[in-house]
């Protein structure tokens, strides 16, 4: 091993291979979307004008950057973590001034040569580093509420900025840090509470509000009846049950409708409602009311999801074959080369293809978790879990939205979707992890 150069020392080649495979699959998928029968594909690949050709160039650039990262010293990341986080936040603030409007969100910074950079994407890396840095501080005791709040704030700040940039999808991604924090000792109750709350919100959407109120009351009543002996003994339990009941009914009656009608945009409410198979009445939406003065609100529909489900569903068990997807070739799915790239895969290679593809992803995630657990330093472990969480969150949300399990939010499929910022972000995320892993014997602070 002595004659091997310094870069490959201790690098986890499995991850590198998985990375390469996924990026290649991505380029092939984009190729399937953009392919035209009459064009010479070799030429278009080298021409640099088509998206798959551009993605190839991005991949090349990312390979260079990955090499650079592997050449750096791990200590650099611990040292720069807070600085980079500050830089990222500044960058996001800068978008409000320099931002370029693409697809309705002002989160892109033009960097010349026709390329644009999405600051929020990069900020994910910095947030991961900053969180790792904070949790790995010797004085941090994560079992204390104060530390938990600070850690939460680190993740919430860029998320808030993203919301202000109308990038709901990117903002949601920051909730992935909860998983990393959970690993570091965040009480499980928070996760349980969070998921219970999600169930309540979904129930509010699906069920008639009166029926749900009756069910909740019945549940509370039933619980009181079951625990009547304990309740007699302790007033606290009674207050807890009644308090929970009040909270649930309040949420269901007032909070959720308020959020849908006053906080979310009409199209967002519609998308979420269409998830559960219901129609949202936009006339209730305060924001659309304000807009209707300017122009008649376009009636949003579930065209995207419908077409996406058709494309994937028509793939069947084995798919239609490479370049034979009729929906892909007919450009029926909007944004198919970016957020809906999974549909081209689903149509061409069917369930078998999708399953294999998801297995590759799952393998990657498990591998990262395995790497995380073998770190000696907390910094590296927290960072590794952050990477796993972010990737997991992207995959879960992106794939779920293409198959109709989640409302449509614009977040890309890691390493597959077309887009330089996204590819660069994930490359950097993964290769910093590899760099840290290569130095896993060191204790980094």
């Amino acid at each position, binding site marked *: 091993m002595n004659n091997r150069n310094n870069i490959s020392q201790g690098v986890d080649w499995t991850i590198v291979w998985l990375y390469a495979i996924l990026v290649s699959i991505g380029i092939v998928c984009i190729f399937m979307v953009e392919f035209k*029968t009459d064009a010479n594909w070799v030429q278009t690949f080298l021409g640099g004008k088509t998206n798959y050709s551009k993605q190839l160039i991005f991949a090349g650039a990312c390979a260079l950057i990955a090499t650079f990262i592997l050449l750096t010293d791990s200590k650099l990341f611990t040292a720069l973590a807070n600085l980079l986080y500050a830089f990222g936040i500044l960058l996001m603030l800068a978008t409000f001034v320099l931002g370029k409007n693409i697809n309705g969100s002002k989160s892109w910074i033009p960097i010349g040569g026709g390329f644009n950079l999405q600051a929020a994407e990069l900020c994910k890396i910095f947030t991961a580093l900053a969180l790792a840095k904070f949790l790995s501080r010797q004085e941090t005791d994560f079992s204390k509420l104060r530390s938990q709040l600070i850690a939460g704030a680190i993740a919430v700040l860029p998320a808030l900025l993203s919301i202000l940039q109308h990038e709901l999808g990117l903002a949601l991604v920051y909730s992935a840090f909860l998983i990393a924090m959970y690993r570091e000792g965040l009480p499980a109750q928070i996760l349980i509470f969070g998921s219970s709350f999600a169930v309540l919100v979904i129930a509010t959407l699906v069920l008639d509000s009166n029926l749900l109120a009756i069910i909740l009351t019945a549940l509370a009543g039933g619980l009181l009846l079951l625990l009547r002996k304990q309740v007699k003994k302790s007033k606290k339990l009674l207050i807890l049950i009644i308090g929970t009941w009040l909270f649930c009914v309040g949420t269901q009656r007032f909070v959720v409708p308020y959020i849908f009608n006053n906080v979310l945009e009409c199209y967002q409410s519609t998308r979420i409602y269409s998830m559960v198979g219901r129609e949202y009445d936009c006339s209730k939406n305060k924001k659309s009311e304000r807009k209707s003065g300017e122009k008649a609100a376009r009636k949003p529909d579930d065209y995207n999801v419908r077409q996406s489900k058709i494309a994937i569903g*028509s793939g069947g068990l084995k798919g239609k074959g490479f370049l034979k997807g009729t929906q892909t*070739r007919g450009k029926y799915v909007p944004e198919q080369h970016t957020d809906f790239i999974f549909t081209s895969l689903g149509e061409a290679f069917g369930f078998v293809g999708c399953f294999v593809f998801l297995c590759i992803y799952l393998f990657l995630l498990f591998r990262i978790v395995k790497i995380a657990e073998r770190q000696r330093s907390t910094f590296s472990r927290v960072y590794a879990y952050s990477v796993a969480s972010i990737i997991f969150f992207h995959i879960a949300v992106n*794939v779920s939205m293409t198959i109709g399990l989640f409302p449509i939010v614009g977040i890309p499929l890691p390493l597959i979707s077309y887009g330089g910022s996204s590819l660069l972000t994930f490359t950097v995320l993964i290769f910093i992890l590899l760099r840290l892993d290569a130095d896993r014997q060191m204790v980094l602070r």
Partner: protein
Amino acid sequence: MPVVNQSRGQVIKVIFAAVFLLIAGQLINLQLFSAKYKLAADNNAIFRKIIYPDRGIIFDRKRKAILENINSYDLVVIPSEAKGVDTVALCNLINIDTIEYKKRMREIIFKTGNVRIGVFEALLTNEMYARLNENIYKFPGFSLTERSVRNYPYSVAGHVLGYIAEVDTAFLRKHRDEGYQMGDYAGYTGLERSYEKVLMGQRGVKNFIRDNKSRIQGSYENGIYDTAAVAGKNIHLSIDVDLQKLGEQLMNNKVGSIVAIDPKTGGILCMVSAPTYDPNYLTGNQRKKHFADLFLDPRKPFNNRGLGTYYSPGSTFKTVVGIVGLTEGVINERTLVTCPGFFTGCGTGKPKCLDKGTFQFKEAVAHSDNSYFSTVFKRTLDQPKYLTADSALSVFNSYASTFGLGHKLGVDLPAEQKGILPVSSYYRKIFGPRWYSCNIISNAIGQGEVNTTLVQLANVMAIIANKGWYYTPHVVDSIEGGDEYKMLDAFKVKHFTDKRIPDSIYDAVQDGMQAVVDYGTAVRSKINDIVVCGKTGTVQNSAKINGKMVPQQDHSFFGAFAPRNNPKIAIAVICENAGQGAWAAAPIASLLIEKFLKDSIRGQDRQAMLEEFLKKNLIPQRYRLEMAKRDSLKQIKEAQLLLQQKISKEATDSVENDEQEPELKPAPAPAKNQPMPKRKTDLAAAIPVEEKKYRKFTNS
């Protein structure tokens, strides 16, 4: 402390795996258990282009093509590519203005969208095509496409052949499961309609992949699911196109109809309905205008008077009355009846008869004696063996029914009417339960409530010629490649008249009918070397004009067959409001008989007769008035239009608005009046005045 939370790594792995399992579950649901997505995908992306086969060609009995296909061209455009077109130049080439150009473009974009092909100008004339073909390269986005168009080389038999037209929503609703779609053409009238299935052929399908804007991307799976189009089958008619042509020429400037049948086969030799129209009028790009013109003509040229219009049969009905009387034995050939100028049997002095005297059967037919047949009819109904007039009438009707009267014959053309054989319940309503023969005596001479179509009358002639049998009259003789849909089977069934009628009775009737032509009412129409049996008819009628029933000139009827011994043609002619049967209908019938049997009109006298009837204008007065009104209105409009144009061009010029006297000459076709269906007025016209009175009486 990291050690404390190590188990949480496992929990996270489980969460990851659970979410992935959930996703896989939904994928299984979508991809393996939901067939609807496959269907939806096919609906999205596969464009099934229908390949239209050529419609079948129609031949006449001498194998002359009378309805065939020619190629025509459409000017089509893809709006999104039509940028920077020299619109003025293009408009000049197809004679429209730029406003019309913009209007059409908007319509095309509205109809088919911006990126697909839309028809800009359909069915270009040859001249336009030539001009455009030279210059088409100057107009990006525009191109010329070929299509097949129906063509009628002889310009005859519009009513029989019919026309095709683009299907409308009503048609689509009616033929839901037959695979028609918007933009298809289908037979709307005539044979085009009744033999649509045969003529249409089998449409082929080509599968293409299309994109989200419906642009074709290429063939689907290299065409393995495509089917080839099968051309429509050709059909052969019993129509003789030369006879048809002569018939139409003879009926020029007349209103009426001719039906000729081959008695041996039931094949229709010609079916003329006047006024007719050139079927080619309805194929070119002026179709809409021509259609409107014809549709608004007061004479209703679209009606097929051969089988869709009711006429009182008049004296031609006496043949049937005579046969029933002879069969029932109420008279024999030697029975004598005297006519002092009117029928004496009922004491009303009606009906009148023209030639006074005493006749036996043959002479009564020859001179069309009203008293004789009134007597026969009265005796038939008054027979004691039937006890009541009700049952006697039903016996009479059952005889008449076997002659193909009172019900549809089943001619293979649309819009056939069934005629009316009035039944006793009808008379009970009018005359009460104790009605008797004298109430309905005008039926005896074909003037009462009996109504027939002309094809039924021609068929009666064929029955008498055959002495008691007929095949259902039909136009189509055979279908090339076999009668797949069994459409011709009905025409191979021989129908017989009542079995009680012996041949001798037909002989007696034929004797009488021969006498009609030899020395009777139709003596002028005698042909020297052909034994023609015929029967004239002169039908009183009235028409509603300005809300009043006004008696009109009689309809001229003639039914005949020839030659007597080996009948080859049975014919019925009606010439509306042309006077006695012998004046118009009989000569026209005789000319057609000669033409059919001898292939030409021979001799100077006959040639002169031909010339006379080719020129004769027998358009009824009421139509002339209406047409004159229409024409003058048109002229005023045109003059006003001209005036406006001139005023706008040169303001200094003063132009007089020269209103022209309404001409009494009939225009060749078009009009703008009375969009009421003609059949109804005819029906009213055919019901005699007498019956109207009764109706009034019972109403009040």
